[in-house]
């Protein structure tokens, strides 16, 4: 008697189509990248940093536990674990590192090391503070013969001004601070020393002169629409 055993039917295996395989590979890659971004390569939640005017705001929202956090500012090319100046210790939430220089990149290392939470550390940077937008200004003007004289109040934080004529940018003149020293009396004459600077067709022009009527530095802008020059 021949023992014949019936083999269960082999299920048919459908090989995925090449397009499905490619799509699955792409999806897996995207998920992997997303996870690395959220938790970092070492599995530690990353610090989020926001650069603002003369300050950087740090937060470590994904860190586990309630142990205090130390924020340390480190040199740009530091080796892990070396150097740096702690500016915030025993903080448990977002922290603002203020009093910074705008335009300078800053790098940070953040550490949570109080037991029983295992030591975790991560880094963030560069964060480069930027100045706030200039403030508002008040404009006044008076019409002349084929001309208009404009004057305006200082806009906080502005390094130059845009003039708009009928809504269109007319010119951009950099008004540096005219600095002068109150007179030193020499042989009975009032002496002023001043410096003013503005841009003329993109090139900086610097010169010194005085208004003979007021004795103060004077800088004016004149020209015709579309062809404005400074002198």
């Amino acid at each position, binding site marked *: 008697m021949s023992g014949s055993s019936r083999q269960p039917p082999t299920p048919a295996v459908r090989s995925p189509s090449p397009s499905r395989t490619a799509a699955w590979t792409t999806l897996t890659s995207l998920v992997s990248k997303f996870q690395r971004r959220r938790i970092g390569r070492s599995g530690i939640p990353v610090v989020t940093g926001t650069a603002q005017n003369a300050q950087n705001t740090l937060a470590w929202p994904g860190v586990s536990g309630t142990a205090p956090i130390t924020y340390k500012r480190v040199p740009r090319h530091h080796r892990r674990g070396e150097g740096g100046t702690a500016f915030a210790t025993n903080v448990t939430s977002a922290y603002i590192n203020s009093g910074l220089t705008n335009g300078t990149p800053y790098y940070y290392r953040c550490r949570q090391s109080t037991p029983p939470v295992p030591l975790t550390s991560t880094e963030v940077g560069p964060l480069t503070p930027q100045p706030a937008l200039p403030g*508002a200004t008040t404009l006044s003007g008076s019409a002349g013969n*084929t001309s208009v*004289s404009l004057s305006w109040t200082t806009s906080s934080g502005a*390094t130059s*001004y845009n003039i708009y004529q009928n809504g269109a940018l007319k010119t951009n003149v950099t008004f540096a601070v*005219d600095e002068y020293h109150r007179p030193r009396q020499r042989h009975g004459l009032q002496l002023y020393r001043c410096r003013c600077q503005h841009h003329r067709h993109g090139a900086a022009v610097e010169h010194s002169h005085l208004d003979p009527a007021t004795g103060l530095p004077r800088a004016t*802008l004149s020209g015709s629409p579309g062809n404005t020059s400074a002198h």
Partner: protein
Amino acid sequence: MAREDEHRHTNLSATVTGLTNNTSYNFNVAGVNTTGTGPQSNTVP
């Protein structure tokens, strides 16, 4: 510390010429820095 006899003066004025008499023009000014352009001023007709 600034000396008492030291002053800072910023000239914020401009004269736009080459305009046509009896024609209405609107002007605005806005401050600019490395971050961007601030809000425009009031309009001067």
